[in-house]
């Protein structure tokens, strides 16, 4: 019933508007069409000026309202993202200047040069000088943006530092899974043909390197201040590891692993204090349409201090020992303290 009334109301408004429009046509015939046309011209010219003024106020107001909600006031959560933020600022300033100049000219000219019987249009067909000016200036501005942009691009997409922690990120409909290489720092091989409901990443457990690998779902832990290199896989369709707070993004493509590295610089705790939001969480959004539950393919990153990270790592058991508890976990010969802790945890569990 309510919908019916809404439609009836809409139809009524429609009819009223139409009748007014129709009436205005008759009025214009009575008043003289040329006179009406000129009146309309003045009104529209005035509206164009108003649109410019209110539009610019609107742009400013929108910025006041929404800028605090963007990620820039809180700053980039990764070292590499700083480059992107400063690049963004340069681009906003340069394009902002051009935006204001051109929009003001467009609407101001429209208003100022509205039809006027006392003035004739000025015949001005071309000017090589002017055209050269506005070919050169944009070219210079763009050259600046390209140079800065590519500098940042090559830095971010370059090889990850040697000491980077490696984490394998796998997307599938509709969840994220993570694999840490364990004390040997080498991820075991995978092969999608080895997929089973239990071994859902298709890990090749004949590869000894896989025996200490740790497999977790949804939540990835990372230490602050250490570069991390993600090796990204997809099992089914294309997904995308979207890390808005770190200003990064990389597709997960079935059959073609991709990589992405960055250095987290603010822990989750610190960010909660900084933003005054006790619920603040670094989220991984899937940024490539991947099916019906694309919007719910959420991952979480917890950035913590090195101590907390090591403690968390020590609490994890390897996927191998989870899947094959009957087999003894392989002896681990390493001096790494994390590894010892892991080994100890494994001991106590047995």
């Amino acid at each position, binding site marked *: 019933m309510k919908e019916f009334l809404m439609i009836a109301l809409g139809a009524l408004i429609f009819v009223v508007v139409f009748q007014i429009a129709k009436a205005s046509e008759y009025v214009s015939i009575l008043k003289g069409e040329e006179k009406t046309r000129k009146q309309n011209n003045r009104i529209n010219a005035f509206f164009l000026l108003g649109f410019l003024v209110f539009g610019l106020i609107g742009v400013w107001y929108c910025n006041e309202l929404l800028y605090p909600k963007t990620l820039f006031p809180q700053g980039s959560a990764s070292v590499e993202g700083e480059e992107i933020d400063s690049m963004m600022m340069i681009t906003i300033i340069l394009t902002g200047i051009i935006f204001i100049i051109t929009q003001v000219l*467009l609407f101001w000219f429209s208003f100022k040069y509205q039809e006027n019987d006392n003035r004739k249009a000025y015949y001005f067909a071309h000017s090589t000088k002017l055209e050269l000016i506005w070919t050169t200036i944009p070219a210079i501005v763009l050259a600046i943006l390209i140079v800065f942009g590519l500098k940042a691009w090559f830095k971010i997409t370059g090889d990850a530092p040697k000491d980077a922690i490696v984490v394998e990120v796998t997307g599938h409909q509709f969840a994220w899974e993570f694999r840490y290489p364990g004390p040997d720092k080498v991820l075991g091989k995978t092969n999608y043909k080895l*997929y089973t409901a239990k071994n859902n990443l298709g890990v090749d457990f004949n590869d000894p390197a896989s025996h200490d690998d740790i497999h977790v779902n949804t939540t990835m832990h990372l230490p602050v201040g250490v570069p991390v290199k993600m090796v990204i896989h997809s099992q089914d369709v294309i997904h995308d590891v979207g890390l*808005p707070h770190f200003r990064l993004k990389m597709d997960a493509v079935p*059959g073609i692993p991709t990589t992405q590295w960055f250095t987290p610089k603010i822990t989750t705790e610190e960010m909660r204090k900084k933003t005054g939001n006790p619920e*603040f969480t670094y989220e991984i959004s899937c940024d490539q349409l991947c099916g019906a539950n694309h*919007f719910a393919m959420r991952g979480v990153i917890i950035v913590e201090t090195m101590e907390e990270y090591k403690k968390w790592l020590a609490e994890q058991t390897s996927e191998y020992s989870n899947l094959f508890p009957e087999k003894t976990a392989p002896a681990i010969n390493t001096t790494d303290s994390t590894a010892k802790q892991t080994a100890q945890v494994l001991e106590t569990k047995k």
Partner: protein
Amino acid sequence: MSSVATVQHAGVHEVHHEHHHHETFISKYVFSQDHKMISKQFLVTGIIWAIIGGLFSVIFRLQLGFPDTTFPWLEDLLGHWAAGGKLKPDFYYALVTMHGTILVFFVLTAGLSGTFANYLIPLQIGARDMASPMLNMLSYWFFFLASIIMFASLFVQTGPASGGWTIYPPLSALGDASTGSVVGMDYWLVSMAMFIVSSLLGGLNYITTILSMRTKGMSMTRLPLTVWALLFTAILGVLSFPVLFSGVILLLFDRNLGTSFYLSDIVIAGKILPNEGGSAILFQHLFWFLGHPEVYIIALPAMGISSEIISVNSRKPIFGYMAMVGSLFAICTLAFLVWAHHMFVTGMNPFLGSVFVLLTLLIAVPSAIKVFNWLTTLWRGNIRFTPGMLFSIGFVSLFISGGLTGIFLGNSALDLHLHDTYFVIAHFHIVMGVASIFGMLAGIYHWFPKMFGRYMNNTLAYIHFWVTIVGAYLIFWPMHYEGLAGMPRRYYDYSGWNSFKMFAGLNEFISFVVIIVFAVQLLFVFNFFYSMYKGRKVTNQNPWQSNTLEWTAPIHPGHGNWPGEIPEVYRGAYEYSKDGKEYIPQNVPVGDEETKGH
């Protein structure tokens, strides 16, 4: 003035005379070979598609704006797709996909180019009809066939395609990946293949007609900019659509014949697929090799139309005619060299990425030339704000706004943050969506008197313009901020996300504006169809005091356009306010004391 030899369309005017053959209803309105009628067929079909595509956006904006509300009438309308009055995610994505497909291809490619290329090319170059009226007719009917198939896909039990208008495989290749990929996707692909045939038939015809059928004196440098823009549009289409065609056919093979062009290493729904060695990224290259030129296939006609209308209504020559043609050419060439900027985050070689950054940002130079030339055309004019003129000014404003944000996205470093966020939605909706719709509307308002011999209602047109431009900015401007906050596009619901749920209020606001703007478009549609039959009659052959040849044809031009000889052309299309004369049509011979024009 140059005396470039032009090929006259000899012979035809002896054959075609206005009343020489009896036409039945079928041959006049259905299987017509008259370019003017075919143009109207494209236009009306395009408008119908625009209403459907627009309505889809209203429905999915309801979900985005009011994720916690149920709308029982939606269930009446959509059945199990909106069980309980709430849109299902599957169908939400189907609507998003269809909205994109319909607007990009059916409205802004066929509806825009199909209408204005067909209508304006013969009339503005001084030809009796297209080079091949038969192919022209087939072009429409292939489009019609594509439309029927696409429309039918809405009624498939598993729903229409739902992988986004970019239909990236494997999502679009595997029925297990989404319901839209079960059967709906085959309809989509077959429909698109038909659409491409239509587009190629049309495009070849436009190019041939422009190159070989110009009237005496109509050298290339005297062509109106609309015709130049439509020529480059046709060239873009003819060279890039076949690549999409191959991409579409290979995807059909992968879906139905067990090939592995795009598939490799896939486990889905617990099943290990045997496909090996394909590349999902290959499809993206094939798709965007059309997909990027497609953006200009949509934008160039709008640029041409706006150039023409701005010049006529400023009562001034278009500033820098040769620069306008040159920049169209530059855009047309660069359009083929920038496609991979849609793929910066696919893991491509960073060096390759840097080349695409360079080429992409280069496009800003010809675009800037165009903008400054439009501004200079307005400068010291004597401007008449007809509805067509207002929409052209709106087009320039939107083109500036949307073009500038392209500089963000074309820079790969910034794209790392902005890719696939609402920033992208804001960017392309403003620069190619709304701007081109404005170009199309400008063209409709400007040439309506020529097409139908009647005027549209001005008051309704002014209301339409003001609500639409204010609404368009209110809808898309705030989306830039959502994108800067990293809010991903194509999400059904944001309420589960700490990072994005603060935009709930804004999303609601945007949805309100969408509904209002859509309602006002219906006002336009009503104005259009009502004026076609009941509008004020045109009594003046040249109501806008325009120079181009279409206004030398009778108010109701018959098949063959000019009852007698085709007018001869003596000058360029933009001699307004020259030598103290208000305007000098192209068919007026050059006087002895006239100063040299361009």
